[in-house]
């Protein structure tokens, strides 16, 4: 039924673990439908077959950490009608943005015998710091359901349902007992954006903040409560410096507790 030319989709990788791309590959049930609805024109992880741009939709994974990538992302942008960033690396700099709080040269010297051959930027930064981004899909990794929802929404001309409210909304809807209140477990849920389905609290663990800050996050109030629960400043800093360490709200809160 769908009209003649299928939309062309490209997937791009920058500094990342590939986990978000795997989410796309993991869409086993939906993949056939996806393939039916779009042309996967450039997805090295899945196929060596590469079609030339321009592309209708580009999914961009990973953060910008090297001068080369800082150039390359502009090329991607130029070839893409719609650029969607996927995952915490692309939307907030990722776990590798921990380097932003320290000296990257020192790090490199621990790992590489000849760090002088390494060409790297001082900071790991999200894609939106470099080019215009049409839509951001949060998560570490992204949620398969949200990815399918986003692709489906764009194909059907509607707005993707990726609400920016708290993880608590998902916990309460699925009937998960609050781990902070009932177990005294520190949880990032109240300041973290929903989307994962509130997985960790359903396994009696506190939320790790994989989906980054929710809308109007009051991280200060959460940190105050944690302190009252006996969490040290160091513990607070570590909780806010996870996969979304360089997301604005989390960065500021972690800096406020540095000793």
């Amino acid at each position, binding site marked *: 039924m769908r009209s003649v030319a299928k939309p062309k989709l490209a997937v791009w990788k920058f500094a990342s673990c590939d986990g978000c791309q795997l989410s796309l590959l993991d869409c086993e049930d939906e993949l056939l439908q996806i393939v039916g609805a779009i042309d996967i024109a450039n997805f090295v992880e899945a196929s060596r077959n590469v079609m030339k741009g321009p592309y209708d939709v580009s999914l961009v994974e990973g953060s910008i950490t090297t001068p080369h990538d800082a150039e390359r992302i502009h090329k991607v942008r130029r070839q893409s009608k719609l650029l969607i960033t996927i995952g915490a690396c692309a939307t907030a700099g990722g776990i590798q943005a921990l380097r932003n709080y320290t000296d990257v040269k020192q790090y490199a010297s621990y790992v590489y015998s000849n760090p002088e051959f390494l060409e790297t930027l001082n900071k790991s930064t999200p894609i939106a710091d470099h080019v215009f981004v049409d839509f951001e899909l949060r998560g570490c990794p992204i949620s398969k359901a949200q990815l399918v929802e986003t692709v489906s929404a764009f194909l*059907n*001309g*509607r*707005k993707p349902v990726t609400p920016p409210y708290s993880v608590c909304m998902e916990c309460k809807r699925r009937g998960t007992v609050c781990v902070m209140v009932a177990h005294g477990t520190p949880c990032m849920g109240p300041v973290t954006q929903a989307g994962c389905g509130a997985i960790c609290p359903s396994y009696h663990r506190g939320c790790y903040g994989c989906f980054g800050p929710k809308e109007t996050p009051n991280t200060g109030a959460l940190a105050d409560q944690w302190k009252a629960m006996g969490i040290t400043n160091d513990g607070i800093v570590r909780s806010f410096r996870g996969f979304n360490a360089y997301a604005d709200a989390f960065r500021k809160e972690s800096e406020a507790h540095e000793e």
Partner: protein
Amino acid sequence: MTTQSVQSAVGAPDLNPMLPQTFRVRKVINDTYDTFTLELTPSHGGAEVSFRPGQFNMLYLYGVGEVPISISGDPSRGNVLVHTTRAVGTVTKVMSKLKVGDLIGVRGPYGTAWPVEEAVGNDVVIIAGGIGLAPLRPALYHILSHRTKYGKVVLLYGTRTPSDILYRKDLEQLRSRFDLEVHVTVDRAMGTWRGNVGVVTNLIPKAPFDPTNTVAMVCGPEIMMRFTVLGLQKRGVALDSIYLSLERNMKCAVGFCGHCQFGPLFVCKDGPVFRYGQVREFLNKREI
């Protein structure tokens, strides 16, 4: 007397109020560069559509979502639903691409009506801003088709630029009527526009109506309505003779979803048309 007009409308409570009926697009009119009018008829024939001026429908676009849109047609034309919409959001943008013959879901009509009965024997001043003319048009149709029942009738209409003027041809025709005063003004104009420039409230001081005996019906952006009330008040119109149509987020339109609350009022079922006195306490407060 005026309280009568704002009683809540009961459509067909025994039907599942969450389930739209399908209607077919009969005609598409591109009013301006971002505004369009759809004429809809029930897809399977069936009963006449009846509504009161000022009421709205929930329009459902398959797979995209639902939006509240006021009815802007002639209430005496029972065989067609007319909706004028600005393409500004996801749903309305998709709606703007509908073609003749396409289907659309409709729930309604919902909400309160303009006080066209209470206004009988009075002068009527209709003040519209931008797309706010759409929900007022059925009231104008009603009044003009019962013209002898009313005193002076004035339409004051303000838009952004001349190219934003809705129902332009209709307005030109109405202008030539002797029993109706139509004044249009725009916020900014270039080129060939020879009409008024300035905000719509500028038109109030000189509009020909008797303030002691006038019912005012106002619809537009909230700020425009607040200043319009001030202008009418200055002119001496009684506050309880002023009616406004408000807009809030709506998901259900039948009082279940809670989104449209405005102080103690549900805009969907207590409104959208309110007597000024009902909303006065909250209208000037922030983030209500």
